[in-house]
């Protein structure tokens, strides 16, 4: 079993909010706080040596200020609530962002609220009285799948910058990381495993539509679309394929990409989804064990990409 430091953590409760409880806060001087301690000690030495009573007063006032600051630093965190916000989906390799909503239900401001992920910089804000505001945490490097928000630190330096109070927070939060988009999908292939199954054009072969490729003739294909040139070269019967601005419907299939490794396939499919989405086509996705019917739109795209992201992960 891994050795874990037995520190206290603020965990999310059943509503998904992490409450900063009284006894979960740690406090320690910052390096300026240590310097301040040295300063107070120096003034104390001088006061003792010269039996200087106003010097003593100053020493003890500053010492008292330090102690009061300790209480205030602690108070600046206690009873905060942290809630999960949006975690935007990203492609592998892009930074993932997590929106953390910090709720101050006290009738006074809480300045300098900082959040920090391990090995990242602080993000900070001054939280006004009785409000909820968001901070966004970033994770630099991501891999395909569900990227959970690691444990992070909530801290503050307020009021004097001499002390830092912090607590460890764990929130149930994930960012979906899609595969990184790979190379473009090959357009031709076996009749049973074609990757792009374009809905054939209803009209003739002329017009503004672009010729994008050929596919083998199947029964029922319109004669107008047969590419006679390939037929004349005895390469078999093919029909012309054209893009059109109106929606076409086809399937993006796992099985149409043989000989690729899993990640490469997923990346390629990801590219296919992105391209199809850009061309405003209807597309469906078939993965082993997953089938998403052809559709279009933002949420459909997300559904497909999420299926890629989670493929083999759950």
């Amino acid at each position, binding site marked *: 079993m891994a050795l874990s430091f037995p520190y206290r953590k603020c965990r999310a409760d059943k509503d998904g909010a992490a409450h900063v409880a009284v006894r979960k806060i740690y406090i320690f001087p910052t390096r300026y706080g240590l310097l301040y301690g040295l300063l107070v000690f120096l003034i104390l030495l001088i006061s003792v040596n010269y039996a200087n009573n106003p010097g003593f007063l100053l020493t003890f*006032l500053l010492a008292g200020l330090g102690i009061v600051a300790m209480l205030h630093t602690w108070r600046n965190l206690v009873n905060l609530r942290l809630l999960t916000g949006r975690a935007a989906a990203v492609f592998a390799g892009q930074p993932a962002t997590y929106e953390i909503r910090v709720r101050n239900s*006290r009738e006074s401001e809480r300045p300098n609220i900082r959040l920090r992920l391990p090995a990242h910089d602080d993000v900070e804000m001054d939280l006004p009285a009785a409000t909820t505001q968001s901070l966004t945490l970033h994770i630099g490097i991501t891999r395909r799948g569900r990227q959970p928000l690691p444990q992070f630190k909530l801290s503050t330096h307020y009021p004097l910058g001499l002390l830092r109070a912090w607590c460890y927070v764990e929130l149930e939060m994930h960012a979906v990381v899609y595969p990184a988009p790979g190379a473009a999908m090959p357009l031709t292939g076996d009749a049973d495993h074609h990757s792009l199954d374009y809905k054939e054009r209803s009209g003739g072969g002329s017009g503004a539509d672009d010729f994008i490729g050929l596919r083998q003739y199947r029964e029922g294909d319109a004669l107008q679309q047969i590419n006679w040139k390939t037929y004349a070269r005895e390469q078999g019967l093919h029909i012309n394929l054209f893009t059109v601005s109106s929606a076409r419907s086809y399937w993006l299939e796992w099985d149409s990409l043989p000989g690729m490794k899993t990640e490469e396939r997923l990346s390629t499919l990801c590219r296919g989804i992105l391209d199809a989405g850009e061309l405003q086509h209807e597309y469906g996705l078939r993965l082993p064990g997953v089938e998403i019917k052809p559709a279009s739109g933002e949420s459909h795209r997300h559904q497909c990409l999420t299926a890629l992201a989670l493929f083999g992960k759950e």
Partner: protein
Amino acid sequence: MMISAEEHRLTNQESIILIAVICMAVVPHFTHTNIWITLFFIATLGYRMAAILLPQLLPGKLLLFLITIAAVGVVVVNHAQLVDWRVAVDLLIVMLGLKLLELRKRRDLYIMLFLGYFTIASNFLFNQGVLLAAYLFVVVVGLTAILLETSRSRSLQRPLKTVGLSLSLLLQAVPIMVALFLFFPRLSAPLWSLGIDQQRGTTGLSDTVSPGSISELIRSRAVAFRVDFEGAVPAPELRYWRGPVMWESDGTSWTRGEPLLQRQMKYTAQGEPLDYSVTLEPSGSRWLLALDLPDATPPHAVMQPDFQLIADKPVTQRLRYQMRSHLHYNTGDLPASERRRALQLPANITSRMRELAQRWENEAQIQNHGRNENHAAVVTGALRFFRQQPFYYTLYPPLLFDNPVDEFLFESRRGFCEHYASSFVTMMRVAGIPARLVTGYQGGEINPLGGHLVVRQSDAHAWAEVWISGAGWQRVDPTAAVAPERVERPFDIDFDDAGIVGSPIQFTLAQSGFLKRLARQFRLGRDAVNASWHRWVLGYSKQKQGRIMDQLGLGFAKGAAIAIVASMLVLIFVIAALLWYRGRERVDPVQADYLRFCSRMARMGVVRLPYEGADSYAQRITEQRPDLKTAVDEIIRLYSSLRYGEANDAHGKSELHRLVRAFHA
């Protein structure tokens, strides 16, 4: 990539405020630091301000290094032989100046602020007055406000609010300060010595008296000492505070001469003793003041045969001691050695001085019908001479040269108390009467607010003592013969009005105009604050602490530790509790009632979903439980109007409360 907060450059506004507050901390030092140090600081300040407008002026590393060398050079040159505390303070000021030039980033700001706190502390080594303390407290508030502002993520841009917060934080620290001040164990000996003990330029009595030495002193309004009487305060004409006694004259100035042979000090007291305590300001000399004649010796002091109290060490810190005096006394016999010294005469006794003394003796003999005990009558005759001849009492006497006594008695006839006293003593000795010159203070002002007596340097005085057979040493104040007001009223001269040489002094009358009375009230009020400051802050010593510890039944070191820990715990708990109380979350009663309703519904099986608003929840309830429709609708409607509507009436709130309480399945 984010820049860490410490690397952030300071804005101009931040720089200016910081520089201003740092200057406030340094300015009191200008009264005692070397002029070159002051100029150096002002120069760096000016340069830094210019650099705010033209940032390219900020010096590079090499230039900064050269300036540093130059600055340290200035300090070293100005303290060539002297290595003491003042060097350290000068260096501190120079460092502050240099740091100003280097001020660019957040990190520098913290260093600067801490140097600022340190500068404030160093000020107390030179002046411990309550006014300076109050001023420096303001500077502490300023520095702390900058700390507050810096620790925020974004500037508040409301300086007054920040200053208020800073003041509030410091006031919360005050109870801790008081507890630590009371219980932190005090030492009686310093840890090391850097020569700060030799205070320079302290005004006070000296051990020689020459014409003009006291009139110089009385221009100072500085407090010499304060007295708390246990009983009634004696009348002004009885308040003679005994200081150094002068035995030997060289014709121009008086000194104490050889130390007297030690002998058992005894005198016959007549009347009740007077108990009081004296709080002496640091004088740098060893005299302890007491009312004529002292009947007690404070600790670490001895009483000389001429009733002077002398401390073992110069008084360099405020000293408080208990005293007992007798105002009426008989000192008895005079030993031969002392008689000889009390008749010592300088060489410059002129014939007209001898003639004058002879005349007084003759008059006394006629008065006493040839009896031999005519010393008292000679004294009376001499006082009559001062009163009847045209003598004037003035702060600005004409300059006297080789023989001040002769010139004063027969020519100028204008002088201050030391002229009268010293010439009187000389004349008594010429007439064969043992006499000596006593310096000290006379009178003092009662502060009605503090109930204590304040004696200032301006109350400095000199008088004479003559030894009369059968009565012992008797005090004679020739000044009183010339200017009785001097002795009866508080000595309060308007120095601005009395600048002409030889002009007689106008004594202030008690009732002289509203403004003067107001000024006097103000002065008395200030002195009452001063007296409390002296008594409770400056006078808090190892002894006083010991007494408090005894009263609490605690020992010294262990007791202090217990007291500090206990008081800290209590105070921290109290402050934490107050903060907790002020910061507790107040749940809106309307919301509380709604949540109670929700939890009751949940028990009935309709759980509110986290995202569900009140109306849609109500709709779902009525779908599932049509029987509750009336009650639920009523509650939800009232809740919505209270929470989201304009209605915020107390009646609605109590109605909602009642409805929810009454709500049952």
